[in-house]
């Protein structure tokens, strides 16, 4: 959260009004809630008046049956209030939760639909904050704010009017406690907002420190840094303690302060009103009713004060959410897009030029910490994303060929393969799949016919089985096992006590690097695509695993067209075409042998790396 009031781009009421559209489907129920609210508020207003009548007409006149009548009426009104409240609150929660379900869904679907470029410029943590914190702020607003605000104003006005009607002069005298009550409440709200913000910051400092310290515990122990880490932790924890106590102090002053003010009200009613009762100018029932109404005063006032914050929070959250919902993906199917016909695997790039467009200037990013343990940042992706360009790429690949892309970090390899899946759109030039321009086909049909093996393997925190099935959702168990056998993944999978039902945990952390690769290969194989894009892992694995992976890779690439961002010599040697890239251009092409014979850039790379990599 930024300091003080966040700057809002659009008028608060416009934002809130648009947000209220989310409860439009529950219009009737909402109307019902408003009616219930009027009933319950009226009931709470009427109850003291009934007590007044019971006293004045029943007790004072010594009329038992009237007393009973009003007592029963009181009970009836209480019952109505209670039943009304149950229905009202239940339905408020019902509406709020349904609306928020819809909002969450729309935000998430928007995210899922957005282009890669959006993900390049926005952190997952921030995106999560839209779905978690912001949506919750909105849900609070929808569930409680609107109805309760109306109800509070209604109740306050009702009390004031009833008191004036019963005895206007005593009422006016009693109302003198209202300004201090309002004043204290507003003062408290203003101060506490700042202090609770400080508490939130202190708490997130504690969790950040804790998270880091736990993640690095092995290093801490290995370097015998426990003492210092504890001192650091003590520091942030002490800060949090102090910030919290400062906020507590304020709250501890506020409630007793309000208490004093309302007791002054009681004293006024008793002192002034009592004397008048003594003089026979005021009836006892009114006196009691006034005392009862005094009790009802405070809650609506405090509630209204708190709502001010909620309105502001909801407006800020709502604006961020609307900004997401208003984001349109740039890469979409053309109006007359056709499905890509069965794809044989011929790929051609003609005069393809591409540069990353600047992000739109809306980069308001909170430092919302991401939940979850190890949010590892993938260095390669991030480094390669911004400002890369491709110039006049010409490339023809026959069905079944393997293309190895070689070049420095930032040479444009990743950008090139991303264009093939239309994750980005080239500014000029043409990409043809079997002579069909991929810009003219539906994205779903395009991506359905290709499979990706990302560098970090991209496994999900579920079972091995479900991870494999991700490649083809309608695959049967037999097909999945058959595919796993083909890549050799079956061997290690069946060694787990739970076999295919083994949970791999976040990012596949239960598995070794080699095992993750094999799962990733199997998943791609199961998709049975005509085109495979493979970003080779850089981490080294032992030789036996390496051989296994190469065998699996051979199976995977067999009979398919493949683009490989190659880091392993064996892959390059096997490739039908080696494309050497530099600064967004193809600077050399040919087979491994041809390029070695040419003694150009590739030769230099090969010689230096090989010499460094192995002796002999």
């Amino acid at each position, binding site marked *: 959260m930024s300091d003080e009031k966040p700057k809002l781009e659009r008028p608060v009421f416009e934002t809130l009004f648009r947000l209220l559209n989310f409860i439009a489907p529950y219009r009737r129920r909402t109307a019902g809630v408003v009616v219930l609210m009027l009933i319950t508020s009226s009931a709470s207003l009427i109850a003291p008046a009934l007590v007044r009548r019971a006293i004045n007409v029943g007790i004072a006149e010594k009329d038992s049956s009237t007393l009973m009548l009003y007592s029963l009426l009181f009970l009836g009104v209480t019952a109505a209030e209670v039943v009304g409240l149950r229905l009202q609150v239940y339905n408020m929660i019902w509406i709020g939760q349904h609306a928020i379900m819809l909002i969450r869904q729309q935000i998430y679907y928007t995210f899922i639909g957005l282009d890669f470029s959006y993900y390049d410029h926005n952190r997952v943590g921030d995106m999560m904050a839209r779905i978690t914190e912001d949506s919750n702020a909105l849900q609070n607003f929808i569930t409680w704010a609107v109805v309760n605000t109306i109800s509070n104003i209604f109740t306050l006005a009702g009390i004031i009017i009833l008191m004036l009607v019963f005895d206007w002069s005593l009422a006016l005298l009693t109302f003198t406690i209202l300004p201090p009550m309002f004043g204290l409440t507003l003062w408290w709200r203003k101060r506490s907002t700042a202090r609770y913000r400080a508490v939130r910051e202190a708490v997130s400092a504690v969790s950040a420190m804790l998270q880091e310290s736990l993640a690095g515990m092995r290093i801490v122990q290995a370097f*015998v840094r426990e003492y210092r880490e*504890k001192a650091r932790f003590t520091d942030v924890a002490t800060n949090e303690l102090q910030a919290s106590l400062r906020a507590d102090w304020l709250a501890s002053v506020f409630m007793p302060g309000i208490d004093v003010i309302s007791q002054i009200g009681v004293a006024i009613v008793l002192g002034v009103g009592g004397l008048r009762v*003594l003089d026979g100018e005021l009836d006892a029932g009114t006196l009691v009713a006034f005392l009862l109404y005094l009790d009802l005063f405070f809650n609506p006032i405090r509630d209204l004060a708190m709502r001010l914050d909620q309105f502001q929070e909801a407006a800020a959250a709502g604006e961020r959410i609307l900004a997401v919902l208003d984001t349109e993906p740039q890469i979409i199917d053309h109006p007359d897009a056709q499905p890509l016909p069965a794809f044989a695997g011929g790929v051609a790039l003609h005069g393809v030029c591409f540069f990353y467009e600047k992000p739109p200037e809306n980069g308001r990013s909170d430092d919302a910490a991401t939940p979850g343990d190890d949010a590892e940042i993938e260095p390669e992706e991030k480094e390669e994303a911004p400002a890369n360009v491709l110039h006049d790429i010409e490339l023809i690949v026959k069905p079944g060929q393997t293309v190895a892309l070689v070049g420095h970090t930032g040479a444009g390899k990743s950008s090139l393969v991303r264009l093939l899946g239309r994750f980005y759109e080239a500014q000029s030039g043409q990409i043809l799949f079997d002579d069909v321009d991929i810009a003219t086909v539906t994205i779903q049909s395009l991506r359905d016919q290709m499979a*990706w093996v990302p560098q970090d393997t991209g496994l999900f925190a579920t079972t091995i089985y479900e991870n494999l099935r991700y490649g083809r959702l309608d695959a049967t168990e037999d097909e999945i096992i058959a595919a796993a056998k083909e890549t050799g993944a079956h061997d290690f999978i069946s060694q787990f006590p739970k076999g295919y039902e083994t949970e791999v945990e976040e990012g596949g952390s239960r598995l070794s690097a080699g095992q993750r690769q094999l799962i990733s290969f199997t998943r791609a194989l199961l998709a049975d695509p005509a085109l495979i894009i493979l970003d080779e892992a850089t*981490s080294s694995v032992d030789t036996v695993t390496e051989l296994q992976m190469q065998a699996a890779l051979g199976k995977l690439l067999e009979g398919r067209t493949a683009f490989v961002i190659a880091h392993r010599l064996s892959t390059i040697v096997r490739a039908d075409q080696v494309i050497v890239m530099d600064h967004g251009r193809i600077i050399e092409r040919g087979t491994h042998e041809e390029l070695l014979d040419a003694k150009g850039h590739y030769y230099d790379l090969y010689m230096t790396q090989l010499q460094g990599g192995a002796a002999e």
Partner: protein
Amino acid sequence: MKILLRILGYIRPYWAIAVIVYTCLIGVTLLTLITPWLVGVAVDTALGNETDFPLYPDDWSGKQTLTATAALIIALALLRSVVNFGQRYGTQWIGRKVAYAIRLDLFTHLQRLPFAFYDRTRIGQLMSRAIGDVDEIRFFAGIVIGDVINLIVLLVGIYTIMFSASARLAVIFVLPMPVLFVVAYLFGVRIEPFFGEVRSTRGAMYARIQENLSQIVVVKAFAREQFAREQFEDDNQKVLNAWIRLANLFTAALPTIWFIVGFLTFLLLSIGGNWVIDDKITFGTLVAFNAYVGLLGLPAHRLAFMIDVTARAIANGKRIFTIMDTTPEIKTRLGAVNPGEITGHITFDDVSFVYAAREDEPEAEVLYNIAFEAQPDTVTAVVGTTGSGKTTLIDLIPRFYDVTGGRLLIDGYDVRDLPVKLLRAQIGYVMQNTFLFNATISENIAFGRPDAADDEVRQAAAAARAHDFIMEFPDGYDTLVGERGVTLSGGQRQRIAIARALLINPRILILDDATASVDSHTEYEIRRALQTLMQGRTTLIVAQRLSTVMHADQIIMLENGRIVEQGTHDELVRLGGRYANLWHLQTDQEIPEEDIRGIGRSDDKAIPLEALPFPVEDRGTEKRTTAEFAAAVSQSDTRKES
């Protein structure tokens, strides 16, 4: 109960403050009880009834009594506000202090727990123990204990006053109370699982969203947007259902409590009212009773909350104390000997190691009958396939794990007889997963020796071939790394980790696949630098690439936890066994298996060819530059043990 007592134990250091706070609390409750009485007196006075309030002289007129009462109410309110502040702030203070103490204890204890604990515990879990769980205990230690005292004083007080004012009337209000409390109790007990359901479904939904957003590359590449939506729809619906169920119970229980209080008022009005008519009680008593009946509703209201919080405090306390009660298996033994500076003679004497059995785990990585020696000033390489036990073997040396059979000796001492911290302080360890902290590069390098001078940091970085890339950042050594800083490549991280290990000038240097993600060119450079740095130390290297280890003084080949071959590179190649086989696999020119991950990954200029192949005897070639470093490092040898 034991758990609650243990939580209460944390209040003990503040017992004096607690006494004051709880006295304030009782004071507030008693003061609260006086006001309705005063109101009753005032109402009776106003109506001209007889009143007897102990403080007032009998001969006061109605006016005097009323004015005095109004003044007294204000005076009491002022007094109460002071005491009330003390009580409110005090209970919070106690709660916060307890939470703070538990958190620190937990953190301190977590630091003592061995690697084995972290192998099976997720950080997210520990985070919620230390943050959320402790916070709920805070509610218990602060507010709930105050509430319990308040509840008792309030009930006793109300009934005492009511019975002394009118026993007949008071009896009526004893009977419905059990009902009120049973409802509140049932509500308190039953609501928690519903809250739990909301929390867990929502947590699962958030986790799934987060995962899909992080893995958007995969989602889009497989065109699985629709699948992701369907999964989400399911999650979303579950959250909604959990909420509706919660709302259903919640909105049923609270109004029931309110209604019972309303019903009590009805009884008061109808029965009490009649008695006023019959002059059995005064009207003021009726008004006072009305206020007391209102107060009766409060504790019932709180009871549900109290039960809920207490139940959670017990559950959370149990989880937290379970962690705190895990005695670290690896700690400094009583009567440990202080060997001073070690020389680094390592002996594995028939060492075996078995991971404690756990269900659901694939075959445990174990070691059997490991026996070898590593002399100071030598390099020992450990090779073998994944899962052969390499990392476990070297992890035994700094006692990240303890042997389960045999002995591991350093300078003739069993490592279990050495002080853990003293031992670890003399071991430089570069782990497979290089973890860097969210701090500057310089702070990261100086992690093991925060007092190191800038020069020393630079020299360590230079030795690890990190200096050049560090200087390319605008902020140089002050560049922030980690989440809020620059992102480093795997190779860069490893070089910083190596610098970090070198800076502590360890007697024993352990490199666990330390050059796995640097390109071959850099790896070669690091290796060259290490040649000098290894001098005088005992070095253990784990590596996949045999070219990395071929110059080692001895090579240990592991397979399934046993040493299958042992000797120098030449000996093992000549032996023609597994090592030789692996060596040929990796170097066979026909099928070049050694990867060239380096291709294209480095912008460094090609190194001059003549500098490349270096025989074992050539170790001293780089002495001129590295000797300076060695000298600087030995100067700072006086670093203190914390």
